[in-house]
């Protein structure tokens, strides 16, 4: 499998681009592996990559029910940030940010990571104080954060309505300059290729239909492509976590599956060179390199596995967009879609051994899983290889809810639709 380089680009350009090889193999499942990872999204593929790279475990399969990139890794709005308040989250997401900063080089695959900044807008003095507190918490932990005045915000994004007559006048904002966006498909493909070339089998169109058990212990999986035995079975199934865990006989988890919509507009000339979030509702927007505005808002608000959303949220998101950028009223929406999010009870993830012997669980990413992809894979690989969590995910246990050790960034309580 060829390295990508300026030379290979030139050679293939001259030969009509007919010699590109597939980026990963399409192997048939073997009868057994050391580790089987259920879920070929970003997190599953990153886990396989770091198992091979950091721990030398290469007898690994990643099983994916559809094709690579068909789930949330290809559905998110691509923002990458580490602007969290609580230390367990800040540390984890900042580690992710550091991996992002070197990811294209590490994978030899251009993930188009662009540190264009993420700006959270504040609309009241109290909210601005709250952002200052979060910014201070971040800076104490070595993460970049800067408060911005209204004048600075207007200079950064001229189209934004900063007038006092706006429905929710802007008071200021908190900027993380190192945050940004990445090309989500490239992240899936880059990790897939990196894992594949180290010997990992990526099994697409291979849906898990059951688990092989020896008493309590999980000893493998039953799939639409046959039985696969494994010493360790790791789950990274995001929105489908509940569905898969039910096959293992676990019918209750601190997780609800909710649907989140996303939208893209027709292509515009450069309009917004940062990612901006609205502080008086739930809305965020960035602009892709192709020129489309990529934006989204709140969950639909009820349990759903449907991968499609309803109209009230569409209306709400558009209204919030126009509250910030009235000039976008004449811009047409090109597409909308939705992904199923595994909403945890405190808004923070779960990366842990168990809950059954031989099983490892990675879930609870809410609607912030994309930015976590590198660190999630890194920590999950460590947890699987060593049978104990890495320092960075030691707090993200499954039993923290029953122990009263929740990590509730938003202080929202056990109401998944509000995290």
């Amino acid at each position, binding site marked *: 499998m060829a390295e990508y380089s300026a030379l290979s680009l030139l050679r293939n350009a001259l030969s009509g681009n007919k010699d590109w090889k597939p980026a990963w193999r399409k192997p048939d499942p073997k009868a057994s592996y050391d580790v089987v990872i259920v879920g070929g999204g970003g997190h599953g593929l990153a886990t396989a990559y770091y198992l091979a790279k950091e721990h030398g475990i290469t007898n690994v399969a990643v099983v994916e029910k559809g094709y690579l990139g068909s789930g949330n890794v290809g559905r998110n709005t691509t923002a990458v940030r580490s602007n969290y308040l609580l230390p367990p989250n800040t540390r984890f997401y900042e580690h992710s940010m550091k991996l992002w900063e070197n990811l294209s080089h590490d994978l030899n695959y251009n993930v188009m990571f662009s540190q264009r900044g993420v700006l959270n807008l504040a609309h009241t003095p109290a909210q601005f104080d709250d952002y200052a507190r979060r910014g201070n918490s971040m800076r104490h932990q070595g993460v970049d954060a800067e408060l911005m005045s209204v004048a600075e915000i207007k200079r950064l994004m001229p189209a934004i309505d900063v007038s006092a007559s706006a429905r929710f006048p802007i008071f200021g904002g908190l900027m993380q300059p190192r945050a940004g966006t990445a090309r989500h498909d490239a992240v899936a493909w880059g990790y897939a290729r990196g894992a594949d070339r180290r010997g990992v089998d990526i099994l697409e169109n291979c849906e898990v239909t059951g688990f092989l058990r020896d008493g309590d212990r999980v000893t493998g999986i039953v799939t639409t492509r046959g039985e696969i035995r494994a010493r360790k079975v790791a789950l990274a199934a995001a929105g489908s976590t509940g569905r898969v865990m039910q096959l293992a006989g676990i019918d*209750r*988890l601190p997780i*609800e*599956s909710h649907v989140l919509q996303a939208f893209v507009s027709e292509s515009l000339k450069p309009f917004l060179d940062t990612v901006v979030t609205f502080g008086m509702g739930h809305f965020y927007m960035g602009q892709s390199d192709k020129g489309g505005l990529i934006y989204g808002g709140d969950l639909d608000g009820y349990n759903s*596995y449907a991968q499609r959303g309803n109209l*009230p949220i569409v209306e709400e998101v558009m209204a919030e967009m126009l509250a910030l950028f009235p000039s976008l009223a004449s811009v047409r929406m090109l597409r909308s879609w939705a992904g199923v999010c595994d909403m945890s*009870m405190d808004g923070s993830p779960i990366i842990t051994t168990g809950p059954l012997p031989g099983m490892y669980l990675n879930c609870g990413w809410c609607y912030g899983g994309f930015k976590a992809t590198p660190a999630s894979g890194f920590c999950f690989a460590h947890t699987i290889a060593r049978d104990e969590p890495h320092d960075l995910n030691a707090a993200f246990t499954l039993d923290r*809810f*029953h122990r009263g050790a929740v990590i509730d960034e938003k202080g929202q309580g056990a109401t998944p*639709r509000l995290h």
Partner: protein
Amino acid sequence: MLLTCPYCGPRDVSEFTYQGDGNRQRPAPNSQDLQAWNEYVYDRQNPAGDHNEIWQHSGGCRSHIRVIRNTVSHVTSSTVPVRGAVHHRSTERRKPGAKA
């Protein structure tokens, strides 16, 4: 998505507030069973299929209703007032002839 309020008839989902999983069993107020409280607060069945859930018609008659809705197709197969079910449970707990 439309939900059929037992009092008001079919209404747009934006009139309703979601109150979550209707399978959860709240322990008695004086219960000290921590496991039962933890399960009530944190653990969910989260099925892909028919889901028993509570909604409030907050933009209408404000009644609480129990809805059986398919989480994949959004088809609702039943909407009934929650009050009936609550009344039913509380009469079961009471001994006949005991004070309310």
